[in-house]
């Protein structure tokens, strides 16, 4: 068994920042990650990092933009903490050597971005995430922080109390991918989940193949509620054939969206009369799809994003990476022709329920980054707000896990925060089919640390044994592809009641098929067949929470559009969706949104751009 003070699961932006922060507080930190840190998908983030750095801008203004962007579903304490801290964190990144793009006077450059009232997006070309990731990893190397590289965390080791709020997370179980060994990791202070997004639940996504919702699924099965999972961001500009992201920076610098008739659609059809292409992402994504649905799409599939008028010099200076992506993955020269784009799954606003200190309702279990939900983004995330979330909340979770007092959190978590019960109205049963040894927490009434971890290791070994010794059955790839297609068909930008119900049926089918899954590769060495099979289980669980929340929420808010419910219902729906696993019988309930900030209360207004 390995032992450390703080164990960070995942080594993307949030995980690296958490590790450095915990290390700075004097903790012995280890990162356990299925990918080498520089391979994390944070590296694919392009656009930038929002921070109110300059004269004329303020954290208050950033906070208001974020709250408005969230369609008044973000929690004010979380948003204000983000906007107050982001400038310091950006300066910190620069002090660590991050190569930001610069103004003539040598200061960090900022550009306009969607939904922002001030050009406050700091950036490093169109490859900001790559530089953030590498800069953060350099700091981990500098400090000599332990990294278990290519170890796949597949289970949390949690005590077996009835009430999740009485449980404690003592560590994790991980598979050494290279050798197939399963080992326990004991965390004396805490475990921080920072595993990134669940985009692989969808067919057309900007997310990496590794973004499989491992963290949320494990936390969910251990008893932590998942929050606001129905809110999935579809980025307006992804390449049609692959889902590769074309940064919002293109529109930030002045790129224009045209339909098949060559009309500037955002203005021509009144989708956003003020901000046009720089409206919030949900608005732009719906506008594009409406164009396609009304027959004004190109090849009935996409629209054009044109940046030629910006001039070669400016494009090459600020958006060079976009030229490479368009050429390599769509065969289009962005200097000569407009780029084909369509909406694609990009980001999960929801995730593991945490407070401002990254804590979940289980003692010693934290989450930060895209896998977590504080909630900063509410019903729709603004471009340029994901990277500051990684560093601000990664750092907070790291510090708190290492024992630093960050003050009392205002956001309540766990079942005790419930304000009302919800009704999903699912046409099929949800949750576990019948897998007694799949319960993460309930490992035989264990409460003392060593037993909790050894039981979890035993349970993991039993699962692997079962998958590997099975003689026949289904391959995970088949189940995964069907699930992805079902989600993209019916849990997309436009959602209908029938479609969502069908998706729940399809997910149930995937769950039942998964009972029959087996791993064909008999080898213990680098068995990706096994790893992907376990990931597929996580995708099924996460997809179910997304779809159930979407069916229950009978209103239109942010990224969540419902054909039968075309208005935002503030009287009824300014509340967070929570879904709890309850040992295999999911329950949906709600808790209030906090609109009271430090100095003012945010009044919900009609959102127009």
């Amino acid at each position, binding site marked *: 068994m390995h032992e450390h003070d703080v164990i960070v699961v995942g080594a993307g932006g949030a995980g690296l920042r958490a590790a450095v922060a915990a290390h700075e507080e004097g903790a012995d930190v280890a990162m356990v990650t299925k990918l080498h840190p520089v391979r994390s998908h944070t590296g*694919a983030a392009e656009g930038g990092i929002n921070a109110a750095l300059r004269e004329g801008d303020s954290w208050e203004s950033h906070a208001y933009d974020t709250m408005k962007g969230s369609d008044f579903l973000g929690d004010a304490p979380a948003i204000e903490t983000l906007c107050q801290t982001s400038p310091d964190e950006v300066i910190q990144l620069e002090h*660590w050597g991050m*190569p930001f793009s*610069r103004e003539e*006077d*040598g200061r960090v450059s900022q550009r306009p971005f969607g939904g922002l009232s001030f050009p406050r997006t700091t950036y490093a070309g169109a490859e900001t995430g790559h530089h953030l990731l590498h800069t953060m990893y*350099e700091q981990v190397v500098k400090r000599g922080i332990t990294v278990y590289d290519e170890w796949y965390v597949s289970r949390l080791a949690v005590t077996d109390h009835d009430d999740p709020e009485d449980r404690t997370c003592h560590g994790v179980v991980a598979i050494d991918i290279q050798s197939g060994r399963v080992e326990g990791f004991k965390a004396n202070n805490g475990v921080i989940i920072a595993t990134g997004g669940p985009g692989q639940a969808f067919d057309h996504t900007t997310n990496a193949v590794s973004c499989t919702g491992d963290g949320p699924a494990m936390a969910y099965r251990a008893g932590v509620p998942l929050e606001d999972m129905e809110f999935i961001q579809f980025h307006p500009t992804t390449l049609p054939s692959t889902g590769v992201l074309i940064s919002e920076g293109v529109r930030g610098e002045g790129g224009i969206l045209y339909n098949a008739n060559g009309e500037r659609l955002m203005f021509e059809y009144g989708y956003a009369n003020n901000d046009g292409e720089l409206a919030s992402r949900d608005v732009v994504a719906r506008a594009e799809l409406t164009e396609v649905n009304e027959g004004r799409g190109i090849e009935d599939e996409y629209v054009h994003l044109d940046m030629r008028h910006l001039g070669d010099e400016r494009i090459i200076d600020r958006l060079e990476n976009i030229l490479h992506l368009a050429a390599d*993955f769509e065969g289009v020269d962005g200097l000569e022709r407009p780029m084909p784009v369509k909406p694609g799954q990009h980001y999960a606003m929801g995730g593991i329920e945490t407070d401002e200190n990254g804590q979940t309702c289980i003692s010693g279990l934290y989450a930060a980054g895209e896998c977590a939900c504080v909630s900063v983004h509410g019903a729709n995330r603004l471009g340029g707000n994901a990277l500051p979330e990684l560093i601000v909340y990664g750092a907070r979770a790291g510090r708190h896990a290492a024992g630093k007092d960050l003050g009392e959190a205002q956001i309540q978590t766990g079942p005790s925060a419930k304000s009302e019960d919800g009704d999903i109205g699912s046409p099929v049963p949800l949750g576990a089919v019948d897998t007694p040894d799949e319960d993460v927490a309930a490992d035989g009434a264990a409460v003392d640390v060593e037993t909790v971890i050894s039981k979890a290791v035993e349970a993991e070994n039993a699962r692997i044994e079962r998958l590997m010794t099975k*003689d026949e059955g289904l391959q995970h790839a088949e189940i995964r592809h069907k699930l992805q297609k079902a989600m993209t068909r019916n849990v997309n930008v436009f959602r209908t009641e029938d479609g969502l119900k069908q998706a729940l049926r399809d997910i149930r089918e995937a769950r039942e098929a998964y009972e029959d899954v087996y791993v064909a590769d008999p*080898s213990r060495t680098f068995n990706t067949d096994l790893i992907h099979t376990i990931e597929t289980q996580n995708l099924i669980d996460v997809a179910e929470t997304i779809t159930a929340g979407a069916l229950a929420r009978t209103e239109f808010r942010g990224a969540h559009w419902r054909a039968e419910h075309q208005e935002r219902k503030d009287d009824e729906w300014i509340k967070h969706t929570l879904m709890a696993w309850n040992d295999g019988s999911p329950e949906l309930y709600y808790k209030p949104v906090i609109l009271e900030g430090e100095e003012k209360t945010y009044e919900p207004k009609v959102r127009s751009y």
Partner: protein
Amino acid sequence: MSTQIPETESESEELAQSTEPEHQQRRMAEKRERRAEREAEAEADAAAYDETIHLKVFRYDPEVEGKKEPRFDDFHVPFKQGMTVLDALMQARDLFDSSLTFRHSCRQAICGSDAMFVNGKQRLCCKTQISDLSEPVRVEPLPHQEVVKDLVVDMEHFYDQMESVEPYFQTNDLPAGEEQRQTRENREKVKMSTRCIWCGACMSSCNIAAGDNEYLGPAALNKAYRFAMDEREGEDMKQHRLQIIEQEHGVWRCQTQFSCTNVCPKDIPLTEHIQELKREAVKNNLKFW
């Protein structure tokens, strides 16, 4: 057409002599049968496409009978316009043989996971179009690195070299509460060097690195360049960095064969950077001033 574990005589012999228990053998036989069925289905699917693409893929697994000796497997996967080598490998894995093992993640040339030896050249599979290659497309693990399994190589040595050049920003002179200034020209100077994605293609293509295990190699030297040329670190730190790279197995081992520059998927002028470091090192040692 799509073969996996060819039914050769040697293999039946192997099975006959195998000390594995009977049920194990039966399982393997059944697995082969099922695989044949799957392949038949997949081939029927493939027939629906106009054409297939022929892959020849390196296979090795230290603990699986029939793969302990390295071999090549043939896969015929349905071809679609715009298909990359990574797409083809994923098809081969998902349709025919789920044990086919390779690293990949982002699919868009930023994570650096899937550098392999494709038709005799180090390339990132995800950004290599099948249509640019001649058939059969031969996919092998990166040369000069130990193979873990199939197309997966041990990257430890590469990481060690990267981390030996103090690959992190160092300065003792930070302005309080605001950013350091950096001229646009200086950022432009280090820009290409900061684009490295640690894929290892350059190191694998380098003859010197192949013959000298201690040679820092093009990626690590480029990392050193990235910091040595960054004006924010200051002159003292630059001297310190030059001392690191002018060691015996540092820049002077480079013989400017340009193979690293030729294979770099991010177009980093690696050889040029190494030569510039040599010049700086000479200036540093001559000390005319």
